């Protein structure tokens, strides 16, 4: 077993080995940034449960393994195989721009980008630096802070590639952008560092789906960071669909920066991964901003899923709506920590938060913690948490109509999840997720114990 300290040293020494490679060519400008990030990581170390933010999520299993940056690219993955993989399949034949990254590396042969309107960019971050270096330098690593978050620091030091999306001022992008991060089979534990930058100009509109898919039961670690800038009066709908291998570790941070009158909606759907942490932080840095965070986590076996969100109301007349729902089976566990900050200036803020959990087994556990920090006096803030089991009266009602007990439980569980899925504007994605959800049901219900 490797101690935590040694573990940090491994990342630091790996960085020393790879530094030249990481800062070669178009990435040369990142050299000081990466150095600062790895130094900060060495200071912070991997988080322990002594930190309030990591109280219920132990990353000890990550510290125990010596992950090496993933080298292999498509690894023989064919377009046919990808097109028939759950959740990746939606990106085929539904008219969207598709960017595929295998083990963190961009695969142009698996990607498909239609003709884009003037000024729009949908490309890999590495490729973008050739043409748009200035814009990338302006935004990259300006929002997701590596000073406070060890995993963001790690990603910033090692970032390989990811998507770069720029929607110019006033453009309504009619086709969604579908990002697929796929992990293929690997012999030794590997780590993948996706890094995405999405910049929506003022008055623009776009839909972006970021998906993480594991193709094997290999042990790997995805450490992802996405930065999203929603310019003035822009409308951004963002999806994060995660269906990694159940042996995989997924630690992801999404940092959203909103300008005045912008409207940002996210849907964070977690189905896979053995140990998962999603950090989603939105900074509402302007008047009249709307921010809606929706989430659904469906766990079974021994999965652990932690969703941490922060909505930071900085200016007046902001509206935020947050609904996270969890369906937990087996001996799985989940954490919801939703923080709403209302700063002194943010008068007339209207914030609502709700976290609802359905426990399908006796062995499942949930830690739900809403946190309100209100420094303005003319605001409306509400929050609520619920934890419950399937209602046996409802099960009987369905059975009395001829529906079998397992199907009845599936229908009711689906019904519980439905109001999160119904908030999605992309029907194709919603329908695909409904199927994925129903397909996961037996796994959660087999562990069902009668109260």
């Amino acid at each position: 077993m490797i101690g935590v300290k040694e573990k940090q040293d491994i990342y630091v020494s790996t960085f020393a080995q790879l530094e030249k490679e990481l800062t070669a060519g178009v990435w040369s400008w990142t050299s000081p940034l990466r150095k600062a990030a790895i130094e900060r990581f060495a200071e912070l170390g991997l988080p322990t449960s002594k930190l309030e933010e990591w109280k219920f999520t132990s990353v000890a299993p990550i510290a125990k393994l010596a992950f090496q940056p993933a080298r292999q690219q498509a690894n023989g993955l064919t377009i046919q195989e990808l097109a028939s993989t759950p959740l990746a399949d939606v990106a085929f034949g539904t008219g969207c721009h598709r960017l595929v990254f295998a083990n963190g590396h961009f695969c142009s042969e698996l990607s498909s980008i239609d003709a884009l309107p003037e000024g729009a960019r949908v490309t890999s971050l590495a490729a973008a630096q050739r043409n748009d270096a200035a814009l990338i330098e302006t935004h990259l690593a300006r929002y997701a802070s590596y000073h406070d978050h060890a995993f963001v620091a790690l990603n910033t030091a090692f970032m390989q590639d990811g998507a770069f999306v720029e929607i110019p001022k006033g453009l309504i992008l009619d086709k969604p952008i579908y990002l697929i991060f796929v992990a293929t089979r690997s012999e030794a534990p590997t780590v993948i560092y996706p890094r995405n930058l999405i910049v929506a100009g003022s008055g623009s509109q776009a839909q972006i789906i970021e998906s993480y898919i594991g193709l094997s039961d290999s042990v790997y670690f995805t450490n992802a960071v996405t930065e999203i800038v929603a310019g003035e009066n822009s409308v951004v709908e963002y999806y994060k669909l995660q269906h990694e291998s159940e042996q995989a570790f997924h630690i992801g941070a999404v940092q959203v920066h909103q300008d005045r009158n912008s409207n940002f909606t996210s849907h964070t759907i977690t189905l896979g991964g053995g140990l998962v942490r999603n950090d989603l932080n939105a900074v509402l840095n302007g008047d009249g901003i709307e921010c809606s965070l929706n989430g659904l986590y469906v766990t079974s076996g021994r999965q652990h899923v932690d969703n941490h969100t922060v909505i930071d109301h900085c200016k007046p007349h902001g509206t935020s709506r947050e609904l996270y729902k969890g369906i937990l089976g087996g001996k799985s566990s989940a954490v919801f920590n939703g923080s709403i900050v209302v700063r002194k200036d943010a008068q007339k803020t209207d914030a609502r938060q709700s976290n609802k959990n359905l426990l399908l087994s006796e062995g499942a556990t949930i830690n739900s913690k809403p946190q309100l920090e209100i420094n303005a006096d003319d605001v409306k803030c509400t929050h609520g948490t619920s934890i419950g089991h399937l209602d046996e009266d409802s099960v009987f009602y369905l059975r009395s109509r001829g529906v079998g007990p397992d199907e009845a439980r599936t229908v009711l569980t689906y019904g519980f999840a439905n109001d999160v899925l119904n908030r999605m504007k992309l029907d194709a994605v919603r329908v695909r997720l409904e199927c994925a959800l129903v397909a996961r049901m037996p796994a959660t219900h087999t562990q069902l114990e009668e109260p």
Partner: protein
Amino acid sequence: MLEVKNLHASVDKNEILRGIDLKVNAGEVHAIMGPNGSGKSTLAHVLAGRESYQVTEGEVIYEGRDLLAMPPELRAREGVFLAFQYPVEIPGVSNMYFLRAALNAIRKHRGLDELDAMDFLTLVREKMKSLDMDQTLMNRPVNDGFSGGEKKRNEIFQMAVLEPKLAILDETDSGLDIDALKTVADGINALRSPDRAIILVTHYQRLLNYVVPDYVHVLSEGRIVKSGGKELALELEEKGYVWLEESAQPVKSGASLR
């Protein structure tokens, strides 16, 4: 069709049914009346297979088979339908999805093809029209936010779509205004046929003006204390239940007919 013999049932060790005997033939409509707490609803739920009631004695034969040995969904697939006094709300599941799942489970059991969305919609539209139901109810979650009357109508609508052989209606008439009552009654009458039987559990005589029963039974303290024709309901309405409880002699359990 249905034969209940010396049925005893308890909830949490409290005996509620204390020896019910009842025989219902195809084509008949039976009304079961009685004061609150007499065991009417318990009888209805025991017949539908609610697991929180324990049958401690007696048997129920449905179409020659042991009904009590069947799980609730099998009873439903074999043609037993219970219209709930308090229909359950199921947020997130549309009425359409719910009813199609139910109908297809029943059709599958009977060796029929499952209905696709289009055929189902056609069937549903026709039934809704006959029950004067707002078509938008189909897309709303099951009973969620429905008024009391809408819920009761929805039960009758489900019954109309599922076409049971034995329909048990548990106080479907309670709390309805006269228009809704007439609609519900029309729905029940439309289902009357020589090969179906209907058991109306009710507290009031009013529904029986519109759905005329062949037999009326009075339940008191878990036993049938009096049985008769439709006139019995009128007599009860006039004199109330107290008269019965005082005069009735719960001699042998049940007044089984025929």
